[in-house]
Every structure is written in structure tokens, then in C-alpha cells.
């Protein structure tokens, strides 16, 4: 279609201008970073604005509410400690969703994957309760990852083999996960007479240390545990995997342009299964925090929609591990602050946080259109 595509000259005027100063490579990356950050920030502001109007409508002071929300999340040590604790599962699910997105898949089944993983982890922790910690912790962690991966592989295979859409299948498998976990819990692992739907506790050897046991100054009551460290490591590992290994390259190529991936000798079907498996494994790691680090058992309904919040985290974090980390900390802070809003405001409850989450997703999702239109004038398809 095009004969003259002389656009490149003007594509990055600022970058070109700065190039002699800092090296073209860095300016391009800087510009990219600025562009990546703009929309998420606008989305957050817009969400807070709408949330604020809602707060005002029900008769509380938005400014005070937000001050309370943020202040209580950043206090030391409880605020920070709990914020990091609440962020931990969101890092895992955010990474899980982001991994799917990078391969062009929408894994909204992280919720089911983490449910299955939590149950399986508890099962391993109960069944091998007498093993030593050196055995049990790696074993249970492995079970967490493997069971989440396995659960996610099913819709991956169904998509690769039959072309059935992963969204519907992962939704269905969310419910199947809860059903199966609950049935198995009641049949095999329930304490006699326990009114709550939960398993027996896992063996002591499977408990992973809390941060308070390692770093003095953080009180032991804060359930922040080693899983947070694992989560941060997972971010780094995911970055390395996606951008520094040939496997990651193949996954990203498939997500970016399956036709070109095929041309480059990459099996698109294989990448779909692989990406789903890795995604599910990441979702499964939520069990490390929840089962091995906090509750020491599986119980029904332990996850306040971590899997779905993961979508918000991934979108806000631009499907990049560093972004996911920051976005998860942001949502972790909201969760922590929400508890205080619940207690100390007249009318606003912690559900404000859910609403803010939903609004952020709505705004970030709607932003795609601006990006696309900008991209269109830029790249003249």
C-alpha cells in the first residue's frame, strides 16, 4: 500500500534530540518508560476520582478517607508489613496473568489454579507431615507449583488441540477447582466436628519462616513471610525467563505475532501450552504464602478473588514483572488501608478497595483504544 514511509524521521523527536547526550539506546528506553507509565497513572487517578465521588455521595469525606487509606498502609511496621503481606499473592497472580498476556492468552483461571494448588499443598503438607523441614518445604512448594501448572495446562491443551477458547475453559475450571477441593477436603481431610470447611493443619515442618523471625523489628504478629521474598524472586525470574531465554523469546514472539512466530520456526501450539503451564505454576505459588506461610491449612474461600485482582495487577503493571511488582504493592496497600477505612470512617467500608480495583481495570482496559489510535497514526498500517 505504502510507497513513502518517511515517518521514522519524526517518530521520536525528543529521543533524537537527546541522542547525542545520552546514547540513543537509553533515550529510547527512557521514552518508552515514560510512555508506559503515563496511562496507568491516569487510570489510577481517574479511579480515585470516581471512587472519591462515590465516597462523597454516601456522605463521607473523600480526602480524609484516602488519607486514612494511604496513611494506614504506609505506617511502620504494621502498615508496611501488612501491605507487603497482602501484596504477595497479588504478585503471583499478577505474574500469572501477565505471562498469559505475553503469549496472547487471557488466563482468568488463576483463581482456580491457586485453589487447586492450595489444596494440593495442604494435602502434601498433611500427608508427609512427619518429614523434616528440609524435605517438606521444597516438596510442598513443588506441589504448589506443579498442581497450579497442571490445572492451567488443561485449558492450554484444549486451546492448542481443539481451539476452544481459554477464557471460557478457565472460568469453568475455577468452579470445578472449588468443587473438587471442597469435596476432597470434606471426604478426606476434615477435622471431625469442625464447622468450617477446612483441612487439618499441615505438618510443622512445612511452615515457612515469617519475616519477623529473620529481620528483627518486624513483630511476629505480622504474617509477612518468606513467600514475599519468593514472589520478588519470581518477578526477577520471570523477567529473565521472558526476556533472557530462548523460551521466553518464543512465547513473546507467539503473543506478538503468531504468523511471524510460525515463520520463525516456532510451534505456536507448544507455546500456548507452555505459557499456560508457567502461568498456572505462578498462580499456584499463592499457596506458598497462604498455606505454608500463613494459615497452615487449606480452607474454603481463603482467596478474596486473588486471581481476578491479578488481572488488574497485570494490566496496571503493563504485563511486565517490574510493573506487576509495583502494581501488586499498590493493591496490597489498598487492601491494608481498606481495613482501616472500614473501622475508622463513618460509612465507607473496605469494599471501597474492590471498587477502586474494578475502576482501575475499567480505565486501564479502555486505554487500549488511545494507544491503538496513537499507534495507528504512527505506524500507518
Amino acid at each position, binding site marked *: 500500500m*505504502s510507497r*513513502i514511509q518517511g515517518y521514522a524521521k519524526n*517518530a*521520536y523527536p525528543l529521543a*533524537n534530540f537527546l541522542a547525542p547526550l545520552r546514547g540513543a539506546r537509553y533515550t529510547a528506553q527512557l521514552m518508552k518508560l515514560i510512555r508506559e507509565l503515563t496511562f496507568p497513572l491516569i487510570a489510577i487517578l481517574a479511579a480515585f476520582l470516581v471512587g472519591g465521588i462515590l465516597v462523597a455521595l454516601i456522605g463521607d469525606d473523600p480526602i480524609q478517607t484516602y488519607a486514612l487509606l494511604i496513611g494506614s498502609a504506609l505506617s511502620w511496621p504494621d502498615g508496611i508489613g501488612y501491605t507487603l503481606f497482602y501484596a504477595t499473592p497479588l504478585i503471583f497472580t499478577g505474574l500469572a496473568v501477565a505471562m498469559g498476556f505475553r503469549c496472547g492468552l487471557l488466563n482468568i483461571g488463576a483463581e482456580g489454579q491457586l485453589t487447586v494448588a492450595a489444596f494440593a499443598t495442604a494435602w502434601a503438607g498433611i500427608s508427609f507431615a512427619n518429614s523434616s523441614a528440609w524435605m517438606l518445604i521444597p516438596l510442598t512448594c513443588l506441589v504448589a507449583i506443579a498442581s497450579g501448572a497442571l490445572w492451567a495446562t488443561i485449558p492450554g491443551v484444549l486451546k492448542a488441540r481443539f481451539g476452544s477458547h481459554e477464557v471460557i475453559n478457565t472460568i469453568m475450571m475455577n468452579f470445578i477447582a472449588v468443587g473438587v477441593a471442597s469435596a476432597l477436603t470434606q471426604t478426606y481431610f476434615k477435622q471431625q466436628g469442625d464447622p468450617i470447611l477446612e483441612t487439618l493443619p499441615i505438618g510443622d515442618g512445612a511452615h515457612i519462616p515469617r519475616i519477623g523471625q529473620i529481620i528483627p523489628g518486624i513483630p511476629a504478629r505480622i504474617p509477612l513471610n518468606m513467600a514475599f521474598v519468593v514472589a520478588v524472586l519470581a518477578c526477577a525470574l520471570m523477567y529473565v525467563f521472558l526476556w533472557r531465554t530462548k523460551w521466553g523469546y518464543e512465547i513473546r514472539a507467539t503473543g506478538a505475532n503468531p504468523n511471524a512466530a510460525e515463520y520463525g520456526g516456532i510451534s505456536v501450539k507448544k507455546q500456548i501450552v507452555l505459557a499456560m503451564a508457567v502461568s498456572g505454576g505462578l498462580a499456584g505459588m499463592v499457596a506458598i504464602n497462604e498455606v505454608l506461610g500463613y494459615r497452615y491449612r487449606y480452607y474454603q474461600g481463603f482467596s478474596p478473588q486473588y486471581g481476578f485482582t491479578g488481572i488488574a495487577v497485570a494490566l496496571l503493571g503493563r504485563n511486565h514483572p517490574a510493573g506487576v511488582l509495583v502494581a501488586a504493592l499498590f493493591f496490597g496497600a489498598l487492601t491494608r488501608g481498606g481495613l482501616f477505612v472500614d473501622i475508622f470512617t463513618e460509612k465507607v467500608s473496605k469494599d471501597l478497595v474492590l471498587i477502586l480495583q474494578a475502576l482501575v481495570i475499567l480505565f486501564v482496559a479502555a486505554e487500549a483504544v488511545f494507544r491503538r489510535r496513537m499507534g495507528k497514526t504512527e505506524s500507518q498500517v
Partner: protein
Amino acid sequence: MLELRNITKRFGNVLANDRVNIVVRPGSIHAIVGENGAGKSTAMRIAYGFYRADSGEILVDGKPQPIHTPHDAIALGIGMVHQHFMLVDTMTVAENIVLGAEPGTLISLDIRGAGKRIRSLSEEFHLAIDPGAVIENLSVGQQQRVELLKALYRQARVLILDEPTAVLTPQEVDEFFQILRRMREQGKTVIIITHKLDEVLAISDEVTVMRDGRVLGHRKTAETTAAELARLMVGREVLLRVQKKPAVPGRVILSVRRLSMKGRLNGISFVIRAGEILGIAGVEGNGQTELIEALAGLVGESELSGSIDFDGREISRLSARQRKELGIAHVPEDRQRRGLLLDASVAENSILGVHYREPAVTGRSGIMLDDASIRARAQRVIEGFDVRPANSELPARALSGGNQQKLIIGREFELPPKLLLVSQPTRGVDIGAIEFIHRKLVALRDSGCAVLLVSAELEEVTAIADRLMVIYAGRIVGEVDPTLATNEEIGLMMAGGSRTSDED
């Protein structure tokens, strides 16, 4: 009847229509010819209200008319049959035809009454279409006639047909032309967009030739020849003739025997030797795409028959990756769809296809990408092929078409290839880059590589190829010496002129 006056339309920086003037006489069959991207479809989509022109006007029956939506066009009696049929596969013929112009009341669709009218229209024009049939059960030819009925049902006086024969078999084409003639007899005006010259001569009364968004000429069909039209159509000036020494062909690198693909390729056989460029000329859509993809390993094994020998080895069962490993490089015809990861960096694009092995990954692990060597590779491509801006971190999207193309060619040269499959290497590329790419291809040949070059640009293949084959309807219709054959001769072959009469 219909007149386009000074129509100009830009998409981004691309000038798709540049002061286009077309006059269509009432009751005529008017052909608009040109290569892909010449701007034919854009001009007609503007006439149909699908796009809005940036400037210029459309006259219907001599009066300027504002046509902003297909609705406006339909009201003025203009109908259009798109290249990709605009039919809902799961619905019936009648449902498709009445869509948007439903008879009956708001709460009751009179599909039976519509069926009657459709049946009588179908009989009037000998279309033989059952209004109750479901679209997905119809043949392509029948679907096309449904599209015609759709326009006739809306009382179109002017029918715009976008590449109507692209999807038809030769018999269907004959039948289809009968229908068009019948329409002309009934006083309809027909505009047919095509790039097949034999069809232009067979059916049209007048013809307008477009190239690069401009109208290059207007002829009465009776007063022109295929050769003249071919020259107008593909005659892009190549500013510099390519300087090259005579080829020194070596051993046979690729030997293709009776390669067939259902409905696409029909018993294609040829050989290419080291150190020569074999050109394939032909109007687009005659099997070039399929041939190249089949050789590159991108067509399912089960769809092909025949044999492909590469360097003495049968490769038709090998995957795309395995073929690349043997030294078959591939520059795809659609660089954005096939050849690039637009949002990935130039550096990442420079390793697509070899990303899994050394030197893209470090030798020790066999897994980790080796950033330094990838960047070095990208730098070699950028420098060796003058990719601008010379920044390996920019996304490929940020490059112009010519630079994207140089990036792909550079990447494939790095393989290094024993055989290069290259398709439309200079499409949408500026003059400077064209020359550059041509020189590189010749240099590659001189270094002993075999090159299979497919191009719709006749000037390009005749200038570069050492031997030239012409493809038509999925078969090789002849081979000529590009230094001796005239454009007229080749043009005739491209138009199917020399095809044998016992075709099935």
C-alpha cells in the same frame, strides 16, 4: 453515470489516491486495472461511501453528491461487491440480501415476500440462486451471485465489483462474464476492479489504469492491447539498471518436481543452481505465495504432493526450522504479517528464526539469550543493510517500510543462506532502498547463493533474474531469457496468453 473528480485520500503518510479522475459511462462495463496497492479499491470504496475522500468530489448522473456512508451510495443506486464477500455464513440467502433493507414491519420480517422477489431477480439475470439456501453451503461462485443479488435487490444501477474473479475457477469466470453482459443489456453499469489483463480485454468496454495511487491512463478496450496495459500497469521506472555480470551457475541447489497443492499449485517443476537468480513473474494470486511458503516449510505436509530436493536431500517433510538450518532463507511477501514482530526491537527481530541457537544463545547454557552477540548481529544487519534509524533498540514498528524490509533481508542474509526465497522484496519500498536491495541480491548471487525471486514488478524480475519463469493459475507457463524477452511477450504470458488449450 459515475464520475470521480480529483479524489485524494491519505492513510497516515501513505497517499492512497492522488487526484484520481475516473469517468464511467452509463451502460458500460468499465475495468479499473492496476497492481496491488495501486489505489483501485480505495477509489471505489470512496465511491461507495466506505471511506471519505480527503478532497475531491463524486458525481452521479452529472450532479455532485455527498456520499458519506454506504447508505448514501445505496440510495443513489450504487452497489458494491467486495473482494471478501460481505455475507453472514450462517444465514440464508434471503436473510443476507434483505439485511439492512428488511421488508415487512418492525415486528414481522416478510422473508417469504423477499424470497419471491429474489427468485424473480435471480431468474431475470439467470443467477440460479435459491433464496432459502444457507450461505455456507454455497460454492464461492454462488456466493458471489448472492452478492450481485444483494445489489440488484437494492435497485443498484451501478455495480462496483472488487476483484470478482480472484476466487473463481476459469469456468466460473466465463459464466460470471455472461452474467455481467446480461446486466449491461439490462442497462446496468458495471465497474470491475481487477489485475488480470485477459479479463479486461474479454469483458470491458473501457479501461482505466492506476499505479501508485494515480490514474495513468484511460483507454477504450477495443483500441488497446494486453501488452500496452501490462506496460502501463507494472511499468514502474527503475532509475538505475542493475549492474551485474553474467551468472556463473554451479551445481543444482534446489530441484522441485511436480509440486502440487489443491487448487493452488499444479505440477510445478524447476531447478535452481548455485550462483543464479531464478525469477518468477506473474500477476499476483497465481500461486506465488503458496509456492514460496511450500518451499519454506510453512504449508502443511498433507496439503502438498511432489518432491523438493535441496542440495541432494529430500526436504518436503522437514519443518520450517529444519529447512532454515539447512540454509534456506526466506524473505516473506508480507513483511508485517509474516516477517516481523512489530512491537519487538530491531535487535530481537534480527534473530527471529535463529533465536534458539548459537550465537543468539550462549554456547554454554544453550538457553540464555546472548545480548552482546544479538546486538552485534543487529548492528551487522543495520550497518550492512543501512537500516535507519541505526538503533537496534527501536521497535520494528518505528521503521519505515523500506527499512523494515532491509532489516528482514539483512537478517536472512546473516543465516547465511545457500538458497534465498524472496518474495516481493521491494513492495512499498522507496526508490533508494529498491536499488540497494537489488544490488544486495545480485551480490548474494555472485557469492554462490541460489536465489528464487518472486515479484509482481515485471521490471524488477527482468532486471535481476538470470532466468525467468512465468506463473499463471498455479502452473509454470513458460521460461524466457530475461535479456531477450520483451515486456509485451512476458506480459502476454502473465495474462495467461500462452496457456495450453487442454487445461482442465
